[in-house]
């Protein structure tokens, strides 16, 4: 419990830094929209499920994400019109956690990049830290083939979107 509280505290501080950094761009900076995150939990054990629940709780505490969840990877087209900036997949096996992006993290818009960093750091704390209930290695599209393959699939089927950097409110020149 103490380590979890420390995680949440660290994330809140990180989130505050992101907000402060965005306000440095100008006095009339619009608040960044929450980053759209889809969590796909394919696991079936109680321990892994509860851990994902605690992980999601830590992510919600940052107020950075607009989060949805489902239990399987969508392989069909997305007809809802609502696409995500980041997708997190917790597969039944292997013992990995995949952070899936539409492109290389370095090419994402600043707000999505910042959220990606928070997501990755939180995942590392929860899944590769001490006293984890469900140890997994956390990998993104630059580190493993699975996230890269699913990134392509989810972009193709309209589940992942790539927000152009120019459209990112963090780069707005209003009130510099």
């Amino acid at each position, binding site marked *: *419990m103490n380590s*979890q509280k420390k995680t949440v505290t660290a994330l809140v501080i990180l989130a505050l830094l992101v907000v402060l950094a965005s306000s440095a761009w100008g006095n009339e900076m619009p608040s960044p929209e929450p980053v759209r995150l889809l*969590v796909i*939990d394919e696991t*079936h*054990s*109680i*321990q892994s*499920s*509860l851990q*994902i*629940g*605690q992980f*999601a*709780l830590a992510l*919600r505490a940052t107020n950075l994400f607009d*989060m949805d*969840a*489902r*239990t399987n990877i969508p392989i069909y087209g997305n007809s809802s019109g609502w696409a995500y900036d980041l997708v997190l997949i917790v597969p039944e096996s292997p013992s990995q956690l995949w952070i899936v992006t539409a492109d290389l993290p370095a090419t994402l818009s600043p707000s999505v990049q910042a959220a990606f960093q928070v997501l990755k750091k939180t995942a590392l704390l929860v899944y590769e830290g001490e006293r984890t209930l469900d140890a997994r290695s956390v990998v993104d599209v630059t580190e493993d083939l699975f996230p890269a393959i699913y990134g392509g699939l989810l972009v193709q089927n309209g589940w992942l979107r790539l927000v152009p950097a120019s459209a990112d409110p963090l780069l707005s020149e209003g009130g510099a």
Partner: protein
Amino acid sequence: MKNKTRVIWTILLVGVLGLSALGHAAANTLTGRKIIENVDALETADDAMLLMTMTLINDRDESLVREMRSWKLGTESTALLFIAPKDVAGTAFLTVGADDDDNMWLYLPSLELTKRIDADSKSQSFMGSDFTYDDMGERDIDDYAYTFIREDVYEGQHVLVVEGVAADPEDTGYSKVISWIRDDIWMPMKIEYFDTRGDLEKIQTNTRIEQIDGYWAITKMEMENVQINHKTIVEMTQMELNTGIPAEVFTSEALPTLLDRIP
């Protein structure tokens, strides 16, 4: 006169010996299996709503308290909701079915996600406590082969001691369990659990057994893990029986709404 006294004493002695032999014979006619069947056949309410606290105590005597509400329909359906503390509030479990055909669902409020859970998860620790999900629910008596060990006295109560050897320790999580059972009300007072290596792992003590609305119930129990010096105390603080809980409560669709059912 002396002969008459001697005859009376002889009759009394024979009578006492005979009665005790009869009692002993009666206990001896009970097999371990029959004793467990008597426990399993204990009459239960049609439905029950329980309010419980679960206190986890570690080896540094630090404690963590969780508050839960449980709805039960017979012996096969249970919905369990965590109310406090905040980090688990709204987490809910549903178990429907008997034994190996159990269907189990979990609702995670932080994801607003209801998902199906593997039945073999039931041997895992229940929310970090010393109870497994199996320990908290109805155990399948066919998972063990039973032997009546002896009669005994425990906490001033006459008990029957029964050993159960697991047919599949990997499935049950235990190689053996030994139960001290009150034969006046067919309730276990103490249970020792042995791990798959045969070492004593946990001791469950049912410290409060009481009759509520005519039904016997364990309203306080402690599970001590002697291998890691950790203890969990579960205490019922409220119990309402036969109130007509609607069947819809025991559906996966109802899990996200259970918190709304708290008055």
